[in-house]
């Protein structure tokens, strides 16, 4: 019955783990008292979040006038941050859904944390359009419900309303997918706990027993949710790009936007996963589960998507020139050489040049370099959205209305506050749930090539160990 194992495939989990060791390694971080690093990180996050909440309340109280938007630049940091967070929120579902369909087993090391990151990033993203409405207490007007205003319905032809449906669906489906994966792991936490903690985790685990029929249905559900999430994740950023592409603004009105936005979203999402996972694996000592192989695989995705994004930038430039349309040509001339030239070249360097370092294998496997570049990529992707939104709007059809923009302290505070929200949620998640999917890791332990004996074998006693571990009859 033993699985056929490729002799050239390296193990996905290093350190010759047994099932029980996996449980110990992955569950124990939720059982210990928080470390000093965690407490410091949590206090800072909550402080920044508090300031962000203050700035949001300030915006609601004073009005959108507290931001530095004007008649010309009527979208700027708000929508830049919205698109940036949504982009980051794409890696989780990509890792869990698309890599599940492609049978990429290495995803099990990072999918749980990436899905959590997705949910928190989408929460941060969703804040911006809501507060940008100005009158947040009327936010339910965007939902189509029978109302006393006619009933007057929202405009179903508007990409802004498509966004409402896309993002709320994405958040809901990601939550369901994530939580269904967590249920068996919460059961593992429950069965190690005592007293009140056991009661809490019993509630969280929904009374999971591990019955064969339940597992069968669980796998069926996971597979279908993955199949549904795959087009969903592509649709979400496509629809976000429609917010721009269906307008008639030069530089926005382009058919390349959907694939270019999706590639950019995966690019920035993987960068954020790398930033977080490199810190998490170090602090929680998960080096055996999130190995250098994982980092290398993700760097390959970064290299691919970064290059796609680079090709898209150049295609845009070419098409602007080739179109012979003077307004389109001016939009791109203005992006590269106008008042915000530094944002354009920052974007070009961070998104197109920096990932090219990853052609070299030893650099892909260099954790310090990866960490540094993952942050560079995130900065670059923020610049990209700023270039598309603020730079383009700053120079519109009418030179007399040309304007410039810099954020007010309120806008900076809200953006900082979303980092506070993101990290507060992430740090709580790290404390209450296993960061690596325990059941899924156990499932791939043996089929993952622990008989690997190639030149890069990390353990020399693999062969002996195999016997003691599997104990074949």
């Amino acid at each position, binding site marked *: 019955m033993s699985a056929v194992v490729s002799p050239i495939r390296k193990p996905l989990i290093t350190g010759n783990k047994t*099932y029980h060791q996996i*449980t110990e390694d992955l569950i124990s971080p939720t059982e210990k008292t928080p470390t000093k690093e965690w407490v410091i990180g949590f206090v800072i996050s909550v402080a920044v979040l508090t300031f962000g909440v203050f700035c949001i309340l300030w915006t609601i109280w004073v009005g959108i006038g507290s931001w530095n938007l004007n008649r010309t630049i009527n979208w700027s940091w708000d929508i830049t941050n919205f698109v940036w967070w949504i982009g980051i929120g794409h890696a989780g579902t990509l890792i869990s859904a698309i890599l599940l369909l492609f049978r990429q087993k290495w995803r099990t090391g990072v999918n749980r944390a990436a899905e959590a990151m997705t949910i928190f990033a989408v929460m941060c993203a969703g804040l911006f359009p809501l507060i940008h409405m100005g009158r947040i207490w009327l936010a339910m007007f965007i939902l189509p419900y029978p109302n006393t205003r006619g009933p*007057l319905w929202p405009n*179903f032809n508007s990409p802004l309303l498509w966004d409402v449906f*896309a993002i709320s669906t994405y958040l809901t489906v990601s939550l369901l997918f994530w939580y269904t994966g967590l249920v068996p792991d919460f059961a593992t936490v429950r069965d190690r706990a005592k007293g009140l903690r056991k009661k809490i985790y019993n509630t969280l685990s929904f*009374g999971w027993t591990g019955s064969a029929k339940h597992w069968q*249905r669980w796998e*069926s559900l996971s597979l*279908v949710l993955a199949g549904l999430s795959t087009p969903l994740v592509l649709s979400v950023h496509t629809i976000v790009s429609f917010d721009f592409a269906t307008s008639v603004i030069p530089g926005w009105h382009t058919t390349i936007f959907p694939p270019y936005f999706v590639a950019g979203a995966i690019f920035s999402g993987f960068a954020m996963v790398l930033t977080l996972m490199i810190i998490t694996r170090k602090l929680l000592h998960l080096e055996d589960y999130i190995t250098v192989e994982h980092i290398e695989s993700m760097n390959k995705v970064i290299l691919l998507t970064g290059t796609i994004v680079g090709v898209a930038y150049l295609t845009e430039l070419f098409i602007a020139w080739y179109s012979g349309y003077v307004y389109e040509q001016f939009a791109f001339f203005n992006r590269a050489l106008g008042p915000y030239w530094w944002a354009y070249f920052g974007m070009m360097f961070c998104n197109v040049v920096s990932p090219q370092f990853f052609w070299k294998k030893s650099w892909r496997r260099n954790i310090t370099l990866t960490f540094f570049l993952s942050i560079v990529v995130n900065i670059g992707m923020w610049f990209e959205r700023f270039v598309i939104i603020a730079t383009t709007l700053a120079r519109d059809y009418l030179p007399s209305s040309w304007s410039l923009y810099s954020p007010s302290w309120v806008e900076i505070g809200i953006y900082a506050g979303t980092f506070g929200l993101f990290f507060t949620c992430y740090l709580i998640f790290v404390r209450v749930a296993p960061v690596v999917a325990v059941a899924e890791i156990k499932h791939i332990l043996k089929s993952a090539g622990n008989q690997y004996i190639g030149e890069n074998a990390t353990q020399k006693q693999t062969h002996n160990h195999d016997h003691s571990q599997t104990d074949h009859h």
Partner: protein
Amino acid sequence: MANNNHIEVIFGLYDDEEDLLLAVKAAKRDHLDIYDVFSPFPVHGLDPILGLEESRLHQAGFIYGALGTLTAFLGMTWIFTKDWPIIFGGKPFWSVPAFIPITFELTVLFAAIGMTVTFYIINGLGPGVVNTYLDDRITDDKFCIAFDKSSVSIEDAQSFFKATGASEVNSKTI
């Protein structure tokens, strides 16, 4: 398994999924009626030898998805052609291409919510459900085969567990 009729079970714990698979095969060969099998993760290859039929959950998912498609498309059609037609940008009232994004999103949303809720209901799982767990280590590193004492005698079960290499044998009322 949220039933109120208590069942006396005798169960054996195995240390490895390979042992479990061989034991389940042996039980089928000996015509011992297995009450249930529990494991810390899905064991592939178990379902066919245990005789579990393929889950029909994905068929339910299709129906929920189709319901979402119809809700969205027919809803928007009714609203924009019958209930309150408005001209947007000189386009027809019934502008089908513009309805596609929301139709797609609601298809996914209905299928995902419907399937997940169905999954928990048919499994008898949910917040506040308290099941009797045979052993705390089943969610850690033990693989368990349970027999209903009313259908398999204790002697048969014990000799079966001994022959198939179970590391522990216990009884419990669930």
